């Protein structure tokens, strides 16, 4: 939340060009993503919604570098991340926050948050601890640095995980349904938290969700995807001013966008249903 405030050139633009991903090309040939293109600007809060199993995670994992793609190209700030011929590798410039959380249970909050800087070797342990304490303080997460993840609430864990990602000053924050299993109250807290982090850092955020309200409340752009194989069906520009808080949820713009979103998604859900696919949440 600190470094980028002084960062000059915007970083974190992602260009997804005609990406196709086929799982198990020699066997079952599951076409997960089909000729999908997206241009995500640096500093954009991009939200992907789409039916279950349509290929959202597949796309995110390719950006994260966990697996390759079959054809097409993904670029990050003008550098080729991966293409059909180039297998990507994960890196601290694109940090993933996972659906079920991936804080290391054997490390304390502080050890988790400093994991990135310590293994990358750019910082001494003491320095990393100092910075982590400062950041946890700024994020309202003080007093828990010596607790283990199992000792803090799920909402707290998710915020710590976002803090762990931000410690690396990544170019992109990749979030795969990070708040899915949370109750409504906890969700409002983590939403506000993520919005605050975003407002202060203006990182590029790539956020996957099933929850349309969450999508519009958080995102600058909402990409609605088709049923599998994934393609972009519709892009909504969310012109609700920032900083946002819960009051945005009752604005006319919000309600209009939600209506638009529901219609588009409903169409896809019906298609998915007819195709015998699993229902979307």
């Amino acid at each position, binding site marked *: 939340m600190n470094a980028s405030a002084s960062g000059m050139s915007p970083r974190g633009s992602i260009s997804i060009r005609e990406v196709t991903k086929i799982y198990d090309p020699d066997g079952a040939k599951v076409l997960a993503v089909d000729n999908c293109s997206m241009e995500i600007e640096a500093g954009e809060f991009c939200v992907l919604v789409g039916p279950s199993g349509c290929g959202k995670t597949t796309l995110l994992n390719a950006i*994260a*570098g*966990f697996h390759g793609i079959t054809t097409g190209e993904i670029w990050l700030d003008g550098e080729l991340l991966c293409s059909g011929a180039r297998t990507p*590798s*994960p*890196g*601290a410039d*694109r*940090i*993933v926050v*996972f659906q*079920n959380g*991936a804080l*290391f*249970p*054997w*490390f304390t909050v502080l050890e988790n948050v400093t*994991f*990135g800087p310590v*293994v*990358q070797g750019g910082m001494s342990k003491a320095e990393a601890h100092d910075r982590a304490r400062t950041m946890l303080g*700024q*994020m*309202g*997460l*003080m*007093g*828990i640095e*010596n*607790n*283990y993840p*199992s*000792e*803090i*609430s799920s*909402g*707290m864990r998710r*915020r710590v995980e976002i803090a*762990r990602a931000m410690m*690396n000053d990544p170019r992109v924050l990749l979030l795969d349904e990070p708040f899915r299993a949370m109750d409504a109250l906890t969700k409002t*807290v983590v939403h*506000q*938290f993520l919005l*605050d982090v975003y407002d202060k850092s203006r990182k590029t955020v790539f956020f996957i969700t099933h929850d349309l309200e969450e999508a519009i409340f958080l995102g600058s752009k909402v990409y609605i995807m088709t049923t599998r194989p994934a393609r972009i069906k519709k892009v909504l520009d969310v012109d609700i001013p920032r900083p946002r*808080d819960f009051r945005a949820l009752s604005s006319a713009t919000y309600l209009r966008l939600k209506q638009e979103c529901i219609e588009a998604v409903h169409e896809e859900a019906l298609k998915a249903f007819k195709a015998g696919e699993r229902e979307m949440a």
Partner: protein
Amino acid sequence: MTTNVDALPQAAEAKAPNSWTIALFNLRLWLKSSTPYLNLLGLAGFVLLWYLLTEYFKVPYFEKLPGPVASFREWVSEDPAYGISLYTPDYYQHIGTSVMRVLKAFVLATLLGVPLGLFMGWKKIFRDYTFPLLETLRPIPMLAWVPLSILMWPGREASIVFLTFLGSFFATVLNTLLGVESIDEVYFRAAHSLGAKPRHVFFKIILPGSLPFVFTGLQISMGFAWFSLVAGEMLAGEYGLGYLIWNSFILVQYPVIIIAMVTLGVIGWLSSALIRLVGDRLMQWKVREACR
């Protein structure tokens, strides 16, 4: 920041307790529950039954066995009829010999087995080479190793330690391997995403992540070590509790058999309690998770 309001009360509640406080708290909780008293009652009931069968009613089949009263008298006697009691140095020599053998074998098995298991879990190629071998050797009963062990090692000491080691070793390797496999894939992804290099993955993910299984494995392997030790000592020994049991049988000194058996039981139990203690110290995260 709006989140402050929510963070403060939770932060206060989740203050990190130290391990002594937890241990003491757990002990107090345990003493308040019915568990320890039922434990004692169960033990007492067993001894009473044994007494009734062997010494009081002298039920057929049981009458030849040494009873608890006779054995206990022998155990605390200053001048034991068969030369083994709390007051004889021989008793401690037997215990000491057995404990040393188990210790040597167990330490060796742990030092070799844990790294081997971690490596097998870490590198698929390495596992592909070694796993079938492990799975073929593991089911061979310890007694089947006796002849080879005697042929291979010069003295009986080394061959007993070797047998004990084998029993311990396979359990350690297998559990460590299972421990590595139990680590959720998502932690590896998270580590890579955060920029971890292979050595970090090994020392910061694989090693701590597999520790719970490793320690379960060490407890099992300690059990196997005692098991194999006694088998070894019965066959070729001069000292040791296994030897004492067999020798007392041949010399018709039956109460000594009971003394040695109970001693084995208690030491075996203590040694696995010790492993658990060390495990708890190394895995505070597990301990604290459990007392939530």
